[in-house]
């Protein structure tokens, strides 16, 4: 039998972090150094950079022996500066409704559609702690959701009770079981008492059941994921989370919901403290449909992609962007991501280097002559179309409503794919734009020529030189992803350039850009950094850069497989602990 949680240190990050490594023949440059270099370059952009998300790690070792039974675990965590203290994070609306679906069925989610106020994604992800506060608007929405869904509950089905005289006992049994599923742990006696107190205002058994549902659906224990550990001060610098908190961490990461019955049972039985336990749980959960959705969300968050149909397009300029075409773009995009992720067996590089093969017929007007049929299968030229950046769905979403949006595209690549911070435009830009607007109706110039104005203005060029040339290199693809050689009767110039990266240099077209990005070590680290954001629901602290580096190194050694990244992440010591902050 393997030892319990203390054996996590067999993956200890105290081992030397291989800062120099090779993946697919890429350059041997320390990742954190590269990313810091970008920050420095961009700092020169305005001389006033807000927040550089990547900073070099500052390994420390408190020398604390760790909690009882933890062996050397604590030293491993401290050495890499894992920064999480007692935490609560509100579930995103997506996660919340996944839990609602598990509790009341998918129809309940349909009933509640549109009842909560819209919430922003933070750089692609909807689960970022900083954005998930309970505002008045959210509170009102969630209370109304809880009321609506509870009133629709059929108590006879959800909480069947044999005899009317036993209704009190039935209520308690139901309250405990329903709350356990919603909270991902057994409710305490106090919590059950509060549920039953609310239920007591119902004048029938059915109404009382509904009141329990209404309460649970807005309880903070349903709304928040907690990482607190046992309810007592610890004398160590790290505290092990409870098995149920670990179970919720796992399930929220892999399924976007609370633990299923098997995982809850494992937590009840304290069977989540071994590396093998966790590996088995990850393997099992990765095979579920929810995990596929979750991995797809990771990729879409990394690429900052929302629903293609929601991309605003001017119907006069792009009459071809119909509902059917938007749906087909979405279908191709989803199929491509699913195929590349492949339930965790795929690699992240394939997202940038493979060519789409699932091409719905409705995309024929978009691909036009590019599309050939060989053996009855639609084919695209990989020298022109390769990787997610070349898909019409991505190109449409990341474009302006009336043109190709080279600035937007360049910014996206720089921010999301290279993790390079770009400050927001200074206030005087509004006035400058008012004075010299870019007119989309000007037919005497190409889009590129209009935005090359930035180069002539020193004030603009200091920042725009960092990302405009990236977007210019994609000008061969218009605002809905159609290949073109002319615009407004003028030849399109698709020569672009990457600057301040580890793969600097010229390129022409999206296929060449994708290949360059795929060869970038900075991109690799950035992807893992984005994964950390997704998994932890927060930006890594500067002291955690060593963790990101360690994940990156292991990820590279594995050949860039998503599954290995997940396994490495949950098997490292930080996954099951927090820092003591009392």
């Amino acid at each position: 039998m393997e030892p319990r949680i203390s054996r996590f240190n067999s993956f200890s990050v105290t081992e030397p972090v291989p800062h120099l490594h090779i993946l697919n023949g890429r350059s041997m440059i320390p990742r954190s150094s590269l990313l810091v270099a970008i920050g420095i370059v961009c700092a020169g952009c305005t001389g006033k950079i807000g927040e550089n998300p990547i900073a070099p790690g500052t390994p420390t070792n408190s020398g604390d022996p760790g909690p009882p039974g933890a062996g050397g675990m604590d030293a491993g965590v401290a050495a890499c500066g894992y920064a999480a203290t007692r935490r609560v994070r509100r579930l995103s609306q997506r996660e919340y409704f996944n839990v609602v679906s598990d509790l009341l069925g998918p129809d309940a989610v349909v009933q509640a559609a549109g009842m909560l106020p819209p919430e922003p994604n933070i750089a692609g992800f909807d689960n970022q702690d900083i954005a998930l506060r309970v505002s008045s608007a959210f509170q009102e929405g969630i209370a109304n959701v809880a009321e609506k869904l509870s009133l629709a509950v059929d108590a006879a089905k959800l909480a069947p009770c044999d005899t009317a005289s036993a209704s009190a006992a039935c209520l308690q049994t139901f309250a405990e079981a329903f709350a356990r599923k919603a909270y991902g742990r057994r409710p305490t006696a106090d919590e059950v008492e509060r549920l039953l107190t609310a239920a007591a205002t119902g004048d029938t058994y059915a109404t009382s059941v509904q009141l329990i549902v209404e309460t649970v659906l807005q309880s903070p224990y349903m709304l928040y994921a907690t990482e607190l550990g046992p309810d007592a001060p610890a004398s160590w610098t790290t505290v092990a989370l409870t098995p149920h908190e670990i179970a919720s961490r796992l399930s929220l990461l892999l399924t976007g919901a609370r633990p299923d019955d098997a995982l809850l049972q494992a937590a009840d039985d304290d069977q989540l403290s071994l590396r093998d336990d966790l590996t088995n749980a990850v393997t099992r959960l990765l095979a579920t449909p929810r995990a596929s959705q979750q991995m797809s969300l990771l990729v879409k968050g990394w690429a900052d992609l929302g629903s293609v149909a929601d991309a605003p397009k001017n119907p006069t300029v792009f009459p071809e962007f119909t509902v059917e075409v938007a749906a087909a773009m979405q279908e191709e995009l989803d199929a491509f991501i699913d195929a590349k992720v492949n339930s965790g067996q795929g690699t992240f590089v394939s997202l940038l280097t493979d060519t789409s093969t699932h091409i719905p017929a409705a995309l024929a007007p978009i691909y036009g002559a590019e599309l050939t049929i060989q053996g009855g299968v639609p084919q695209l030229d990989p020298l022109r179309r390769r990787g997610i950046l070349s898909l019409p769905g991505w190109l449409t979403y990341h474009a302006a409503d009336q043109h190709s949006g080279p600035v937007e595209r360049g910014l996206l690549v720089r921010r999301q794919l290279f993790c390079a911070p770009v400050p927001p435009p200074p206030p005087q830009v509004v006035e400058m734009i008012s004075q010299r607007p870019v007119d989309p109706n000007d037919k005497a110039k190409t889009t590129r020529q209009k935005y090359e104005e930035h180069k002539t203005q020193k004030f603009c060029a200091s920042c725009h030189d960092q990302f405009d040339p990236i977007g210019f290199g994609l000008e061969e693809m218009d605002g809905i992803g159609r290949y073109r050689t002319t615009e407004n009767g003028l030849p399109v110039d698709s020569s672009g350039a990457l600057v301040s990266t580890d793969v600097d240099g010229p390129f022409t077209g999206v296929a060449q850009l994708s290949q360059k990005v795929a060869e970038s070590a900075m991109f690799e680290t950035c992807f893992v950094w984005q994964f950390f954001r997704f998994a932890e629901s927060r930006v890594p602290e500067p002291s955690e850069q060593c963790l990101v580096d360690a994940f990156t190194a292991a990820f590279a050694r594995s050949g860039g497989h998503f599954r290995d990244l997940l396994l490495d992440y949950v098997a490292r010591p930080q996954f099951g602990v927090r820092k003591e902050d009392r």
Partner: protein
Amino acid sequence: MSASFRPQFSRRDLLRAAGATLAVPAFLKSAFAAPAASTPPPLVLLMQTNGTHQASFWPTASTWDATTGAWDSVILNKLLTDPALGPKTILIKGINYQAIDAPHGNQHDQGFHGLYSGFDTIAGPGGSFGGGISLDQRLVREASFSSAKLKSIHCGVHAVNYNAINAGRLSFSATGPAQQVPCELDLYALYDRVFGSAGGGQDAERAQKRLAQRRSVLDAVAGDLTALEKRLGPNEREKVDIHLTALRDFETRLSARTGTGPVLAGCTGVKPSMTGVPTGGQGNEANAETLERLFMEFIANTTACKMVGVLSFQFGRGGDHFHYDWLSIPGMPSDAHDFVAHLDSGDANIARINIEIKKWYTNVVSDLAGRLAAFPQGDGKNALDTSLVVWGNEQATGPHDQKNIPVALLGGAAGRLKRTGYLVDAGPQPHQCLGATLLNIMGIAATGFGGMPSCGLIGGLDLDLSA
């Protein structure tokens, strides 16, 4: 007003005033409202966006009076030349947006959240949010709306940006810093809530029972929150504090919604004149014009029936991007916001288009005022006489200027506006003075508003705060 009168300050005012060096001048004190002796008039707050075309908005004469001359405002012509509406209108010139410190976001955010709150905007997830409680929510807490069925409604017609950037611009109503109150869009649900079960009797009894149940649910949730809070460190505790505050605010509003005030004859089962108009849809403005007309009808019905204490309405989200296709303006560019509002600084063609858009807003507001004026209220008064409509704007001009924000008061505020039908031009005044004035009209003695505890009232208004 009694010589022994002492203004009633809110705790927030007192706290802010404690940090201020300005004492309240004695002459100002005498201008403040006495403790509310009677029910305040129904109040309607309208928020337009993207400013106006200044030269075409204000009447030429700076001392215009409805009894002595004709209005000559191009944009306001329909409202001011209407014999029933012009004499009931007050234009307030000289209101300037006044930052307290360093508000977040740009002028759209600042004016949208600031005009009816008096606070600087603050950063929030995905945009800029109001930095403090807005006027409508403050009135919910402090005004005596005992005769209204509901204390407040915040509603509007808006097109949502597709990826929720500038999330703060979805609603200007707030119960506290970044505590956004949702803007209700479902006109038909609002009708159901306001007029659906107004008959009392068994429905009212059932509503009270349901209210008691919801309160018990919220008590249980608050119990969970309090227990959770005790286990957290200081940083995380703040999250739960915000949650608890939102919960208690919701409970307050919940109670306000199920008020039991008297319902006037003919004010039950009131229906909209058109049904089946879709009220949602991201970015969909196909129904915006129809919905805005229907909302004016709804506001007139609720106000005339005295169903709601304060009703706030926003024409779109902050910095709206309506294309105004329904106006069929020749030469209208494809993006109304960027190409009309922002560029309205001298180009005659842009000005022409912008003026046409602003005239449409005048038509809509005139429609509301006309509906109110058509509701008799007894004693020869109509619903416009007995209520107050405030028509404000997030900015002064499209190119983000914040001086001379267009503000109009319509109605007599049940006698608290002693005289109407004139232009007030008392020189530059911080926008917080508008909020302070409205608080006093609504029976709350306040020397200031929002982040400015001692700004005083709008100069030049002829008020009777004891009415």
